[in-house]
């Protein structure tokens, strides 16, 4: 377990609990919006560290880092979603995701908490002609006054527009 996990009060025990409860989402913010992703896709949460650039990669692919011997690409969602000039400091958060056996790091503004939503709290997403395609939305989660944009992170990260994964040769 990486120390960063404990710092943020997020451990494998939480994960195990999530498996039983289901529908647990990790809430994070990007700009003014709050997003949620399936907690089971999250491997760990880290601070931002220097990346190694990859030539001719899309702008939102910051580069690669060494995650305990594994080379992991880092994607900045703030650039991907056009949320202004990103800053990188000791408070910048990287969510390490495990998507279909591949490991990808995702830079977000901050991580708030893990919330449980039941089916009634998840509303279908309205059509939004915004930054991303509603195909990648699970729906909108509501919890008291908060609204979470629930992203199907699996689908988003493996999509062609992210260009993280080579398309399987036809």
């Amino acid at each position, binding site marked *: 377990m990486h120390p960063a996990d404990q710092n943020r009060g997020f451990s494998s025990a939480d994960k195990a609990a999530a498996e039983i409860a289901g529908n647990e989402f990790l809430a994070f913010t990007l700009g003014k919006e709050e997003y949620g992703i399936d907690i089971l896709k999250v491997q760990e949460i880290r601070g931002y560290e220097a990346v*190694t*650039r*990859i*030539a001719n990669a899309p702008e939102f692919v910051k580069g690669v880092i*060494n995650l305990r011997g*594994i*080379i992991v690409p880092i994607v900045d969602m703030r650039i991907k979603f056009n949320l202004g000039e990103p800053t990188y400091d000791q408070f910048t958060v990287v969510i390490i995701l495990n998507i279909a056996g591949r490991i*990808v790091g995702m830079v977000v503004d901050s991580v708030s908490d893990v919330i449980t939503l039941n089916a009634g709290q998840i509303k279908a997403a309205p059509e939004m002609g915004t930054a991303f395609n509603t195909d990648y939305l699970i729906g909108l989660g509501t919890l008291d006054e908060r609204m979470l944009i629930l992203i199907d992170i699996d689908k988003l990260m493996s999509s062609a527009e992210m260009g*993280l994964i080579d398309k399987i040769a036809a």
Partner: protein
Amino acid sequence: MTVDMSQFFQVFFEETEELLAEMERLLLAIDVAQPEPEDLNAIFRAAHSIKGGAGTFGITDLTEVTHVLETLLDRIRKGEMALTGEHVDAFLAAKDILKMQLDGHRHGAAVDQEQVVAMRATLQSLAQQGSARVPAPPGAVAPLNAAPAAAAGRHCYRIELPALPERDIKALAGELGLLGTISESRLPDGRGVFVLDTEDSAESIVAICSFIMEPSELKITTEAAASVEDAQRYGVFEPLPAPARSAEDAQGYGFFEPLQSAIAQKEAENAQGYGFFEPLQTSIGQTEQENAQGYGFFAPFVPNGGTQPAAAGASKHGDAPDKAAVEADPVAEHATTAAARKPAPRRDADKPAVAHNEASTSIRVGIEKVDQLINLVGELVITQAMIEQRVDSLDPMLHERLLNSVSQLTRNTRDLQEAVMSIRMMPMDYVFSRFPRMVRDLAGKLGKKVEFVTHGAATELDKGLIERIVDPLTHLVRNSIDHGIEMPEVRAAAGKSETGRLSLSAAHQGGNIIIEVSDDGGGLNRSRILDKARQQGLPVSDAMPDAEVWQMIFAPGFSTAETVTDVSGRGVGMDVVKRNIEAMGGLVEIRSLRGFGTTISISLPLTLAILDGMSIKVGPEIYILPLAYVVESLQPRALDIKEISGSGRVIKVRGDYLPLIPLYQMFGIDSACTEPSEGIVVILESDGRKAALFVDELVGQQQVVVKNLESNYRKVAGISGATILGDGGVSLIVDVAALLRSSRQLNDESIYTE
């Protein structure tokens, strides 16, 4: 109780595959005229183990084929029939059939049932022919034949099982049923009892049962067909140590020991020698000394002494043939019957022991576990490098002990890394062992005589490479047989021996392994290659050195073969061979002398996981260039740089103009230094093409652990992988071959979409 059978299946499949390979190896090595009894036994044991395993898992088609195979092998090893070339061919074919069936079960591959049926028929007819040819009148001929002849008779065994699940009992009944007729009953305490009427020996029964239980739990007795008063005394099979048994009980009549166990001592006391066969392994030493008077004791120093007392002992009790058989048979399983009568049973004794040792000195580990270990050690190496960097700034006087400990850590880490990397190493034998069969088949097909020799089979190479070298090597070996080695009559006319010699060797040379395929055939035909090259419009001249001419056979679609055979044409696919080897970071060289043969020499790095790299800096980024491609580096003078019509620059290096590749442009890096004369150029060479790479500065040379970039990201043009530097940061490894391929089209955007 639910057990996941699939894991057992996997073990069975792997074991069977190994046994088949072993069988093939032995068959290829066997001397048909004078086969070694222990080889025959080993082949028989392999077939027998496969049958036993297949039976346990209910894979009946394998059992059926192995059964006929085993029958035939059994007769040969017992000397009932002579081994012929025909037999060896049939056995090899049978091995292929078994492999096909195995693949059928394992991977769902197609199984040609007609071939299976034909094979069984062939084996059966061979078995019958044999018996007609060498009739074995029971007891009439030499003692050599006595036991097998008797063994062919039927015995009735009573097999008492330990407490077992019902399912296992049924499975056993099914399997034992293959040996003969079986009837099943129950003891009052619920244990199963089989009565088996079979030609096979008690040993076979133990072998089969050992798949399910400990042999020592098994109690096998012969139900003497004749009404002998006290069956428990005669022909008692007692695999149990039975410490309580009184000495009188085992007066030694027909008492034997199918399994090595704690009985040795008891044997020593009780084996007064009547028909006592010592199955060899065990602590015989003492026994031998005490019982050297040894009637019927099979020890090396009592040649020919065995059978008579045994027979005598048995006949004394009136049921001579049967008893003798019962007694002799288990021995035959351990030592050959023949060997039992020759003063050489010792050698057989060693064999199972050796095999056993081999089995216990290696373990099977999933490659991902090894990779994980390598990753972790890589991390350790990096951490260690970080510590080393930090302590460098400390005062050596004040921190002497800390510095000593750190240097100790450095040494240990390096040793550990080496040890871990060596886990991935496999002997070349893994590759070489598949060729004898291929050479034999191919030579037979082409009507050539080929002697195949290998050297350096123990040389080790990384597992990743060893699997990839198989195809290119196969191609080269086929070529050598097809085109290199001449027909016997041609060879004889040229004053050479009719049998061609093909050798395959592997040896370490520095950080590389050199693999050579060498034949003493006709050699390459220089003029024909040159003619062919001209036809294909390749630039050639008669003055070219041989080495360059030979390299032409690697050109795509180049073949000098006059006729295309169904085997291959030298040249067809040679370009693929070369490309595959180069993809592994290797080189191919040809040496050939007309009339004396050809040697193709492949030089490969020992591992792909580590490479010698040169780290270079461009702007803020550090890249690694594989050292194998680096020719030299130099600081260019401004006047050596020439512009070519504004589309690219070249640099003059000792009279040659090389294209200049500015790395900062290729990788879009903001670099302070854009004039080659301010930086350094590294001359790179790949595939005979040279170019000058312009970089800011050289950082140093180091060994780097290669990491795959594609496991979590996609392929990146111009980058072949990544590595982790001493500070924990990631550095990318430049794909020099691709870079040079695209260097001609420097201003063309397409280089990255290649």
